């Protein structure tokens, strides 16, 4: 652990330097304190934000929506991706639709989704789902199609049926690529949950952020921004840990 801390030290020092520079710049009056408050002020406001009941409520709402949309997207992306990657007719059937939907910048779907599903949870889950689906799906198809044919032949010579071949051979063998797709999807899901909350302005961290900005509570706005940064970091680190557990073998062959 001390070795890891040592490795991180220069990078952390760099961040500390910039925070200190911002503090000095604001205190010296080089930047407008109204728009760019002292980092120490933001930190103090962070304490208040974190201690308020609104924080847990907003965090719970955002994480709940993200989890629902993201996990649905992963499940659908992996299942459809395995089917498309393993079974040629399924691929032929869905591939044009996929190529049509994939390039749409997903925020462009927000206005129609709001018309169709309203401003509530269903719309937000739908937009997260659509945004997170494609990276998982594309990578799963790619993974399933590039599994070492020797492994597939092993399953054949031992007379494993299609279902067991898919779940016992294709799925685990594709896992490194699937997880890479899931990582991209997680980032997109976070962007889309915050964006949809900012747009509807009802609950969640995104709504808190725009509320603070519109009411000109600038310190609080920065505090929510920092909360979001921390959420993104926490998600990325959790994902790393999950990945290390699931594909510990992938660099060993």
């Amino acid at each position, binding site marked *: 652990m001390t070795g890891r801390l040592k490795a991180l030290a220069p990078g952390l020092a760099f961040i500390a330097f910039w925070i200190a520079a911002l503090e000095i710049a604001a205190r010296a009056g080089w930047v407008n304190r109204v728009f760019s408050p002292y980092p120490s002020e933001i930190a103090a406001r962070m304490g208040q934000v974190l201690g308020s009941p609104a924080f847990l409520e907003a965090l719970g709402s955002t994480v709940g929506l993200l989890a629902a949309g993201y996990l649905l997207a992963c499940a659908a992306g992996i299942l459809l991706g395995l089917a498309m990657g393993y079974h040629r007719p399924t691929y032929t059937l869905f591939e044009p639709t996929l190529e049509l939907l994939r390039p749409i910048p997903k925020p462009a779907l927000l206005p129609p989704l709001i018309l169709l599903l309203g401003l509530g949870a269903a719309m937000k889950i739908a937009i997260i789902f659509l945004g997170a689906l494609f990276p998982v799906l594309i990578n799963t198809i790619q993974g399933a199609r590039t599994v*070492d044919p*020797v*492994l597939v*032949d*092993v399953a*054949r*010579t*031992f*007379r494993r049926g299609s279902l067991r071949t898919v779940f*016992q*051979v294709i799925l*685990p*063998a594709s*896992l490194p690529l699937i997880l890479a797709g899931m990582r991209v999807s997680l980032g997109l899901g976070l962007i889309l949950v915050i964006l949809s909350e900012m747009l509807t302005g009802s609950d969640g961290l995104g709504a808190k952020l725009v509320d603070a900005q519109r009411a000109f509570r600038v310190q609080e706005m920065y505090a929510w921004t920092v909360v979001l940064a921390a959420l993104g970091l926490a998600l990325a680190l959790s994902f790393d840990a999950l990945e290390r557990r699931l*594909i510990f*073998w*992938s660099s*060993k*062959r």
Partner: protein
Amino acid sequence: MSELLQVRRVAKTFDAREGQVVALRSIDLTVLKGEFVSIVGPSGCGKSTLLQIIAGLVPASSGEVLLEGRAVVAPPEGVVYLFQQYSRSLMPWLTVEKNVQFGLQNAAPERCAHFLDMVGLADFRARYPWELSGGMQQRVAIARALAAEPRVLLLDEPFSSVDALTRLDLNGLIMDLWTRTGITILLVTHDVEEAVYLSDRVALLTRRPAEVAQVFPNALPRPRSPVDSREDSRFLALRHELLTRLLQPA
């Protein structure tokens, strides 16, 4: 002994950029129940393709393979193909024990232990394939193949990427397992000594497009020993004959 496996006029043509390539012209071969037969031939003559056709992994362009009188169209029950690329054929996310379990139709840990014991890897069941040497990995693949309790084992140059001593060691293991289980083994190899040492009969293939040039009976008595049998006059005679034929200019 009864005819277990019949290969009848099997031909294989591949589509390549330069047109159709005939890999196997017409192969006829019969293997008796309990026999150990080797197939040798020049490199690139289609030996592996032939074995994959017999395994039901690759369809023949024409002709047929009969297992106990029934045509092989998909991997049949009781036939297991052992891959040359052992490191690619084992699943890196499974332990040695779980890899062997993949061969069992219904996973039973004590059966797994039995087969790992047969190949001398009882102490390595909790390890991962990538933690083992090449020879040990091939032993895991052999244990997995045996766990499926095949009547016919098809070996595709199974020892070609291990060092010479490990190779002799694995030859001994296969001969021992063959003697103990009474299964039928068909071995494809480019190593003439290996073929003569292990087999009851050796089928020599011609250059591509391949046909069976001749099937040689092997007079080398059993039980065979890794050192003495290789100095036996009958071993040397067959080796001489096979190598001479293989090295003949086209």
